[in-house]
């Protein structure tokens, strides 16, 4: 069994206790496990690749600093995504404050798509990008709480219980938020397609 297979078999809790014992390098296993999901979660929330990867770095630093507070009976994903969610919401609040001071700051900004892992033909990429832009715009039009619940369900594939652990919201509330987000997204996309 090589090193990579060993890493795969170790549970999150085992890595956490190893890091807390002083083996800081083991924290890199956790980064490898969750970096893509965390960056994508933040990216879907703010639609800015550079900011997303910078916030993801902040999230991992924060996770490392607060690792002592993590209890093994909790779910590690809930623990790290709570931190990522809080940092993202703080960032959104800050951005809102900045745009309040400079109204036209966000206008005319070219959406930052980041490096995608598409190996299709150029034609397909263009079509996919257009579709993606449409969904991104529709996502932006959602309320923050709806966006969080929707992204966690659709893109992270979290159960309602897990979302409830991360956000602290009740399950009926999550159900309502996701349901409204779906209706709102479908409505926006249908409107845009009618305009086209």
């Amino acid at each position, binding site marked *: 069994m090589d090193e990579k297979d060993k890493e795969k078999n170790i549970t999150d809790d085992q890595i956490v206790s190893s890091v807390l014992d002083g083996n800081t390098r083991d924290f890199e296993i956790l980064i490898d496990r969750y970096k893509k999901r965390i960056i994508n979660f933040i990216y879907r929330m703010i639609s800015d690749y550079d900011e997303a990867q910078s916030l993801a770095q902040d999230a991992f630093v924060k996770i490392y600093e607060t690792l002592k507070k993590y209890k093994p009976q909790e779910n590690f994903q809930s623990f790290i995504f709570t931190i990522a969610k809080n940092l993202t919401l703080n960032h959104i609040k800050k951005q809102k404050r900045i745009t309040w001071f400079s109204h036209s700051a966000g206008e005319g900004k070219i959406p930052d798509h980041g490096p995608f892992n598409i190996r299709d033909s150029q034609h397909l990429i263009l079509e996919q990008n257009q579709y993606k832009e449409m969904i991104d715009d529709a996502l932006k039009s959602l309320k923050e709480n709806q966006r969080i619940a929707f992204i966690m*369900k659709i893109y992270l594939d979290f159960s309602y219980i897990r979302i409830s652990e991360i956000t602290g919201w009740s399950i009926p509330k999550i159900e309502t938020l996701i349901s409204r987000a779906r209706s709102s997204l479908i409505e926006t996309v249908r409107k845009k397609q009618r305009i086209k």
Partner: protein
Amino acid sequence: MMWTQSRLKKNVVPCDQIKHVLSPYLDDELDPETRERVQTHLRECPACNEEINFQQVFWTSVKQLPEVEPPPAFNAFVMARLGEKRLKNRWGFTGFPMLNFRPSLVYSSVFFLFLFLGILIGTNLVKNPLPVFNQTPEPEVNMTQLLSESMDLQLQNVRETSMELLATAHTSPGNPPAKPSNFNAEGE
């Protein structure tokens, strides 16, 4: 679960109630009994069946949107930042977290400090105004005059000391008094 699910259990499911449970149905979050009822309704209702088929295709396409990739040096960046933090902790200096998060606190405290100092100095000045000196311009110094004056002083000093010496020579015993310079032998 939600109130709609409990209502669904009681009666035959009408189409408008299906709309309420569509989202949890798609998310696979319904309890088995409610799920079964919804599926029965979908088999019997072509309109709802069409809607659910459309939504399933739509959400699958949304789900399959391309993901972003983390930058290649992501791990290195994070580990470097952790290294910096550890170094800071080792030296026992962790900064001033309160101030780091609230720079406005620093600005306002500096402002109030200056305001306080200003008031303090201001009130002090009102009570004890600074002394105003009537400075007359210093007279211009004539170096030649100064030199001649000092020369005269020195000459006078020399004269006085020599006179004193002469006077002591006259008064001391065994020594005849010195003749004054204008002494006339014939007048004795």
